[in-house]
């Protein structure tokens, strides 16, 4: 089931975004964003990070879509929307989101 465009996704209890040290082996000193969840962790970057940062219970799904369409204005808007809905569905399956109406 695709998420309702009016709903406001929010990270579920026990799921949070953290900055963790990037892997030592790549030599660079940048920090890595990781979504920590019960018994799972997802490294985030680019669009996935932009999406998760907006899962705060304030942005609606529609707002997240239009924000990202602006940020990634070179991409085809419909494709951006489909990718976001797909990603939210994946996080929902992981049980990482609550959708507030």
């Amino acid at each position, binding site marked *: 089931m695709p998420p309702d465009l009016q709903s406001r996704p929010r990270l*579920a*209890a026990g*799921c*949070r975004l*953290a900055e963790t040290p990037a892997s030592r082996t790549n030599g660079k000193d940048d920090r890595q964003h990781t979504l920590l*969840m*019960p018994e799972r962790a997802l490294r985030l970057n680019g669009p996935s990070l932009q999406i998760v940062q907006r899962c705060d219970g304030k942005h609606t799904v529609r707002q997240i879509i239009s924000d990202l369409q602006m940020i990634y204005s070179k991409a085809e808007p419909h494709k951006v929307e489909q990718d976001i809905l797909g990603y939210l569905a994946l996080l929902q399956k992981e*049980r990482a989101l609550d959708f507030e109406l």
Partner: protein
Amino acid sequence: MENSISNPLALIAELTHRCPLHCVYCSNPLELQARTSELSSEVWSGIFREAAEAGVLQADLTGGEPLARTDIVDLVRAARDAGLYVNLITSGLPMDEARLAALVEAGLDHIQLSFQGARENIANEISGALSHSQKLRVLEWLKSYRVAVTLNFVIHRRNIDQLQEMLALAESSSATRIEFANVQYYGWAFANRENLLPTRQQLDRSVEFLNREQERLQGRIRVEFVVPDYYAKYPKPCMGGWGRKLMLITPHGDALPCHAAQVIPGLSFENVKNRGLREIWEQSAAFQKFRGEGWMQEPCKTCDRRGLDFGGCRCQALLLAGDASATDPVCSLAPLRPKVDAILASLNLISDPVGAGPAPPAPEPVTRPSWLYRPNPS
């Protein structure tokens, strides 16, 4: 690939071996460590910081019963302050609501409440204590706190027919995850194996049932289930591979690559009081012993699956094959698989309890097995 040692991802902190329960499948070693030798909160705080620096993302606070430590709230805070995701694995026993509130306030991310069954009598029998109703109370309290909840059921022959009731318990709670973990046959469970291994029929029924339920609960509760490896075709990648993902610290500070590593003869373990965590991870002989592929024998050595299951569990190889470097005998390709088949064959001769299955529930067997209960350390 000896020169590319990956970072450890999770630190399993066995804070104590003390426990109000006496589960017949407890994963603690048969030699339990005494209270007087337990690490202080200061030492643990240092370990959490070192772990985070080494790339660890998550601390699993476990035991024994981690709540048996009077400083548990400080330990949770220390792990969280170090930057770790904090997971508490508890029986819920020495818990009251004020303590729960303090744990959540200190930064607890996830609580895994272990249940011994869905029914009072069997749960109490397995844990050797009156424990079930307290767990139900904790589950009620948890509804008012913002913390992830997993219900953890250890599955075996005496409770595998109660899966439906277990799921109902999860659905009536705030849990977002339910884990059906099959007993692993080491330590206490190995001693009690004959009374714990489910029958083939029980297993098939439960797999079918859980596949359906997984679908039904999708997006609400994550249902996780792993088939007991005696019945599997290939072994599990024990601990995600030796020295690849996990590091376990015992109550007095020994660093182990796996829960049962102490049973393997000839391995010696370094203590976090004497050496840095990262150094132990990268260099200690115990972590190097079965890392990579150099130690493997045939058939693993040339098998295509060796990068997937790493040859299975070293402790199981020792227990069943008498050689910790052997192919895990549960593997269908292992020379010693017939030994596992013989164990299953004799077990499956004993007929299944009549009327078992998710519904209607199985009648309780009248006779009670003679369990070997785990005691408490001094």
